[in-house]
């Protein structure tokens, strides 16, 4: 187990370097970032040259990358174009997005798995068909439609929530956005759990457990659910990274100043430092989430052992 973890951690290094290099090159290919800073008016050449020097853009790209990575190991993520250190942007936006992700994952787990178990056990019954239809609707309607619709109904028409989340973004304001963000994944979790439960329901160990006279509740949670969760955990694990980086649409609709919003700003303003910094952290989150998922396998199914 220990050796497995170390091997996995070592594997992260090339993935990390490759991913950051790719992003760095991609942002650089997009063109001269200084040109956008001066608005519809051209920067005067002397100021532009001075700004390039300040942001280190006058050096060749490979040198910029090496300097950037060097700084990264000292915890220096550079400065965004508005003069704020990127670490400051991160400190203000990551907590918000983490809260949003927690809310979304919470809904995925609670609603998604319960619905999945329910429908999996009653396959073919009206409940099953209804939930299947509902998840189909949720999957096929784009997030921004759900988001805008809920915002309009709950926020403007009925006045149950505030349509825009305040800068502090406490948990209670994030419930509706979190639900919107989770909706598509939630539907997938339901369907994955349903299939998995329905398959395992006929497994020998479930029959044995029932035959032993265990209470139905214990059979389901202890034996059936635990074994059926592996594909679901894989999905949710991968989803953590996707939710954190891909919340742009939801964050825009509900005025959440999180990672998605900062990334969007960084891309529009072509701020290399912001984009690469945020993506670097997201890559790390993704890698760690994947590792945790792999380790969870062994907990869920003791037959899986790591050499």
């Amino acid at each position: 187990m220990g050796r497995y973890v170390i091997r996995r951690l070592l594997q992260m290094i090339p993935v990390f370097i490759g991913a950051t290099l790719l992003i760095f090159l991609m942002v650089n290919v997009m063109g001269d970032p200084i040109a956008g800073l001066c608005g519809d008016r051209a920067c005067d050449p002397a100021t532009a040259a001075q700004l390039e020097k300040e942001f280190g853009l006058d050096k060749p790209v490979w040198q910029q990358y090496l300097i950037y990575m060097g700084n990264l190991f000292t915890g220096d993520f550079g400065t965004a174009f508005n003069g704020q250190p990127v670490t400051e942007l991160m400190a203000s936006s990551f907590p918000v997005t983490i809260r949003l992700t927690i809310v979304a994952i919470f809904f995925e787990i609670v609603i998604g798995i319960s619905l999945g178990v329910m429908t999996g056990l009653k396959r073919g019954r009206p409940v099953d068909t209804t939930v299947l239809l509902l998840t189909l609707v949720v999957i096929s309607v784009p997030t921004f439609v759900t988001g805008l619709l809920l915002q309009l109904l709950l926020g403007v028409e009925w006045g149950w929530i505030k349509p825009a989340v305040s800068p502090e973004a406490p948990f209670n304001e994030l419930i509706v956005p979190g639900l919107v963000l989770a909706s598509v994944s939630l539907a997938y979790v339901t369907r994955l759990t349903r299939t998995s439960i329905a398959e395992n329901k006929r497994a020998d160990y479930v029959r044995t457990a029932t035959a032993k006279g265990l209470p139905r509740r214990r059979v389901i949670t202890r034996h059936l659910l635990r074994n059926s969760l592996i594909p679901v955990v894989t999905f949710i694990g991968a989803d953590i990274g996707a939710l954190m980086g891909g919340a742009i649409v939801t964050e825009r609709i509900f005025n959440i100043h999180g990672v998605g919003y900062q990334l969007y700003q960084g891309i529009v303003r072509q701020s290399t430092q912001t984009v690469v910094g945020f993506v670097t952290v997201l890559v790390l989150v993704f890698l760690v989430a994947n590792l945790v998922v792999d380790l969870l396998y062994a907990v869920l199914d003791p037959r899986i052992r790591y050499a």
Partner: protein
Amino acid sequence: MRGATHAKWAALAAAVALVATACGGGGDSGGGSGADGIVSSSWGDPQNPLEPSNTNEVQGGKVLSMIFRGLKQYDPKTGEATNMLAESIETTDSTNFTITLKDGWTFSNGEAVTAKSFVDAWNYGASLKNNQKNAFFFGQIEGYDQVHPEEGEPTAQTMSGLKVVDDKTFTVKLTQKFSTWPDTLGYVAFAPLPQSFFDDHAAWLDKPVGNGPYTVASYSKGSQMELKRWDGYPGADKAQNGGVTLKVYTDNNTAYTDLTAGNLDLVDDVPASQLKNVEADLGDRYINVPAGIIQTLGFPFYDPAWNKPGQEKLRQGLSMAINREQITDTIFQKTRTPAVDWTSPVLGEEGGFKDICGDFCKYNAEEAKKLVAEGGGIPGGTMTITYNADTGSHKEWVDAVCNSINNALGNNRACAGNPIGTFADFRSQVSTQKMKGPFRAGWQMDYPLIQNFLQPLYYTNASSNDGKYSDPEFDKLVDQANAESDIAKAVGTFQSAEEVLRDDMGAIPLWYQNGSAGYSERVSNVMLNPFSVPVYDQIKVG
């Protein structure tokens, strides 16, 4: 696992409780009413650090317009420049100016506003070392070349053209005659700065201190700024409300939704998608007035294919092939006004706004076809209009303009849009002369002067002359106008220069942009100034 199940239920119960408490919220925007009421307004994250000479976009400009007052102030209705801090600005030769300050002005930290506050601020703004994006505003002052050389290191710390005479007086020497120069001094780059700006720059940026009707109470970057009325403000335009809270919105659609839900008082940028509903939603609480912004199509005069003799007919023909009325009506829902010259209606007739473009700006398919043919046709048979696709929904109107041209010329391949991914990339391609055909150009005035609409854009090698248009006759007339000490005559000469521009069709004027805003029932007396920025200090609450 059993324990985990309990935890799940507890969490669910907690969530339900949270939903319940969230329901109780809502409707507590701002606070108080009457003279102490707080106005909440939408805001966008400023692109640059908030310094007067470094702020070149609207969002940062809003804040500076609240916390700073300069030598002159532009009237929110007429755009006329009137003295604010200046007691007098005197000159005999349009080159040497003596500026005297009024008594009794201080910064909100108590420091007096002196001649030195201006001279230091201007020297700071001009210096190459400080990377100020508005540095070129000081370009007319003598000695600018030494503190801001085009290449190499600065050879001086301060501009030789600026001299402090005493606490209340300083003199300015320009490198050439510029009669309307005093009227440019309302621009925010010319604001005075307190000593604390130079002593602790980082602290000042975290909480800017100025001399305007408001002070910054708190500023959390990227999300919100609270401004409070400054009771010690000596000016006549004291704030009519207790303060303004600027809230950063990720999307102007969300801000608009928040306004209709009653959580926000003022939105100064009604999103294009809501223009159809805005009358029904807000009634007379919707403002739609012309601003000092003009949109044009620029041409790449550096490309030999677009710079042949006789091609002015081609450009004029293209201009006549664009159905401005139809596009502003259908695509912009009348938030744009078809252009008839290269300036803006906010200048007024006295300021130089006049129908100079004439028939060339009116849709006439037949004449357009004839002129394009006489002008040698479109180079290569097809042309593209380049624009940036990331902001401002330019795609719709570019496609409409191309359709209009194609229809008028009876050729479906005459014109097509050419989107570029980001604004930064678009700007870098435009400013490095990579355009292969016409491109989107926009100009927001810095100060309401006809000079500002012509010289920076079309004078040979001027700072924003992206198409590299050049005409000796135009340059000569602009120089003459600048030297003219009689303002009315100067405006007339500028108009003659504009006629040269028309005969060359140096750029196709498309339309003037309006400022649009909506406000809640809580506030009244809301208006937009000629820069399409709300006049915050005049807003009344309750």
